[in-house]
């Protein structure tokens, strides 16, 4: 298979995934038991002390259907939706937060989500892999067992418990961090940037702790298996040092599945970390998606899920394209 053929095949697959994903994104909310227009009207009725007349409600229902692109049969809505996404990357207006556009809402939340999750995911990956590599390469040593225990202890703790424990410890008993941060507004200054970092440290710490354990265990298992490979034995017999064998022979070969896992988890960071954002009052996509799901806000759900699908599919494509560079076996094939 030539390189061009390989790349074309992968890109074709990527486009197919996007098409199917976006189509499902369109259909799924419509199978939800909630009708966003009715939920919205009910909310308005409640806020208007129940004083909306039937005529007012009927008029409002008609205009909302028009406004949010819910007019017409399913096929018409589908074509309009695909056209808007593909040509303008436009997900329309939020139903629950009219007249805000979905794109504005998501783009506003995305930097926060990405800043927190990208950093913590990469840090957890690096730390976990380093510890896991050492624990795996020296798996016969007692010290390695201790390192492994860190992973074994951290990995099974439910995230919620871990986060609440960290909050209790570092924001309540020892109030080093705020329980409920206030992020600064206006023009960013070095001082304000420092406050953002300070307010992000606690949620980042919980995410690192949560991801750290899995990476230790996973890398340790891979490193143990790789250490037994003949080429590592050969390197040892050749007189290569422990460091050389661990880094150049074991790590390079054991890291392939870890790179895949990292790329996929980087793709999923676009979803946000709902529990983190809720517990730490952190502005992100997760909170927006939760509100949208609760209120049946089709358009916001479309937007957030579609962006997530695009991100995961793109991450998959990038992995496919760079894998041959990392793994000579694939290149050869």
């Amino acid at each position: 298979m030539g390189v061009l053929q390989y790349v074309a095949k992968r890109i074709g697959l990527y486009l197919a995934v996007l098409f199917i994903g976006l189509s499902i994104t369109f259909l799924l909310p419509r199978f939800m038991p909630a009708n966003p227009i009715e939920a919205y009207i009910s909310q308005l009725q409640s806020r208007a002390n129940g004083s909306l007349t039937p005529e007012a409600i009927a008029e409002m229902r008609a205009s909302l259907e028009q406004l949010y692109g819910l007019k017409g049969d399913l096929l018409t809505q589908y074509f309009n939706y695909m056209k808007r996404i593909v040509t303008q990357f436009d997900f329309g207006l939020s139903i629950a937060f009219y007249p805000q556009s979905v794109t504005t809402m998501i783009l506003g939340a995305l930097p926060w989500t990405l800043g927190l999750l990208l950093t913590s995911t990469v840090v957890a990956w690096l730390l976990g892999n380093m510890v896991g590599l050492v624990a795996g390469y020296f798996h016969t040593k007692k010290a390695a067992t201790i390192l492994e225990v860190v992973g074994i202890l951290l990995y099974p703790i439910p995230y919620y418990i871990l986060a609440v424990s960290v909050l209790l410890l570092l924001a309540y008993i020892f109030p080093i961090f705020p329980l409920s941060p206030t992020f600064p507004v206006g023009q960013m200054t070095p001082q304000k940037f420092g406050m953002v970092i300070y307010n992000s440290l606690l949620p980042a710490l919980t995410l690192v702790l949560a991801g750290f354990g899995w990476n230790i265990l996973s890398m340790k298992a891979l490193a143990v298996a790789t250490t037994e490979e003949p080429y590592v034995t050969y390197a040892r017999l050749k007189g290569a040092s422990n460091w050389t064998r661990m880094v150049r022979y074991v790590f390079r070969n054991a890291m392939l599945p870890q790179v895949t896992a990292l790329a996929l988890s980087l793709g999923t960071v676009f979803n946000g970390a709902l529990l983190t954002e809720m517990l730490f009052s952190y502005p992100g996509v997760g909170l927006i998606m939760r509100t949208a799901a609760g209120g049946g806000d089709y358009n916001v759900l479309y937007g957030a899920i579609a962006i997530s699908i695009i991100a995961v599919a793109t991450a998959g494509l990038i992995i496919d394209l760079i894998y041959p560079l990392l793994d000579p076996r694939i290149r050869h094939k």
Partner: protein
Amino acid sequence: MVRLGRYVLAPLAGLLLAGASQAQEMTDVGTPRNETLIVQTFDGKTANPNAQNPFNLYAIWRGFRELGWSFLWEMDTATGQSYPELAAGPVEVLNPEHTKFRIKIRPGVFWSDGVELTADDFIYTLDTASKYKDKLNFVAGYVNYVKSWAKVDNYTFEVETTKTAYDVQTVLGVYTWGSQFTPAPKHIFEPQGDNVVTFENAPAVTLGPYKIKEYDPNGFWQLWELRDDWQRSGWGNAGTPKAKYVLYKDFGAEETRALSFVQNKYDIDTFMSPDSIAAAKARNPAIETFSKTFPYHDMNDACSYGIYINQQKAPYDKAEVRWALALTVDLKTVGLSALSGQFKAAAMPLSDTPITNAAFYGPLDGFLNELTLADGYKPFDPTFGQQMVEALKAQGAPESELPTGDAVKEGFGTGWWKYDPAQAEKLLASVGIKKGADGFYALPDGSPWVVELVFPSDWNKVMQRVGFSIADSWKKAGFNVNARQVDAGEHGTVGNTNSKFNLELQWNNTCVYNVNWLNGWRSFNADNVKPVDSSDALSGNYLRVTDPEIFQLVADSANLPTEDPQFAENGRSIMKKLTEGMQEINLMNIPTTIPTNSTYWRNYPKQDNFYAAPYSWWSSFKKTILNIEPTGK
């Protein structure tokens, strides 16, 4: 030594004092803590903080209704009386049909940017709301109520309503928690032209004594600052606002909120579960509930919790079935397990508050006690409150915190229905419903009967707990219950759609704050009844009332002044009919658990100091702003 004191000690003392003043505690948004009232937002974080256009659904819960906007008439939530705010006095009625009105506004009220409020602002608001009513989504409350309007002079305008209207002051003003009819500043909005429908209006030019200082674009907080010219604001004539700053902030999930409250990070909470309040109180004596005695919380909300029943659908179309369900809700156990006994029972389909009690519950006390079902059974249990006291005592509640004498009725309500599964079984048998071999009731044709109860999931934890507890109670009495907790969106859809709806725990469609019961029940009419299998959404009458006599009472009452004794009498007649037919299993007043922290501010509204309803998200919060006092800390 004197010299030493003058030249050494005095500067040292000065330095210390300066140091102390520099060490003054500041909030996270840079305001002095002792000048800032900090309030937990009612709806948590908002996704649309920039939406501040009162023509559209805006970021309503960030203080706008309370501090920003101002209305023609406000509501005294301690008495249920409407009073003028922007208006110069009560509405003037111009014709015997009660359709034409003259409204005078107070001269000398200024917007936060220094422009005077005039009748032109109201005329512009009505013109715009009417012109774009199919595009603006927060104007329906008045665009179909008002038919025409005209300016008389700079401080006077007239309106004509579409129908006879005795409730002008509470529709164009405030009935309970705010008004949709918010005057928009013409000088800001008019230049927007047609773009007014999507205009965000941030930061808004407002009328109240506070103006927006800063807000978080992520939607977690909004800071208000007292205007220098607050005396010429919309309610600057009502008294002196005590806090220089008011910060509305979402302190996050209940776990972090409770901890932040203990740390004195904020002063007023919204809904917090009884468990969290108890835990917070135990760690910080400055945290208080509304009352020192059970049921601890404010029970004066206009709305109540109840089980709505699809009365059009078999077998719920039979009164015997509905009564059987009511008589098998073990409300004492439900209230103890779901709310730790901190609730006030309300047997009839209205909240039982001091205001509604005088008009409805009190006069119907005899009716409840004498109410008899067809077989001669008397279902009402006036001893319910005392039983609650005994149950709580048995659970170890401190006697000093339990009500005694008349306070039992004030605390736990007039009474509720007996818990009597045997009578329920008898009622069900009379319509052919008997228990099957599996121990559960089956339909008359012998087929299994699954009683589906829909209630909110954790977006409303109190209702979620109550829902599960009721399902448990019914299950014990032999009903095969499918307890289904749903998101807010689905909750609304189920409640609106006949084909999807059997039984649902609800809260919002029977809200009555004073004698004007039409506010909650005006939608009882034949036009709002849809076929039982309809998948079209209802436009009102969510109780599914089909009784033509009730429809007639509602129609007749619309042409009566709300202060007419016959108006209240008609309301009581409707209550009797709804109760006799058990058309809704009303449960309790909404327990609004609003703990306060008196570290920095005191004199919040409390049971023994009830100058206003204690809700920080109702426009009546203005009264709290005027009455709180700094503690000096």
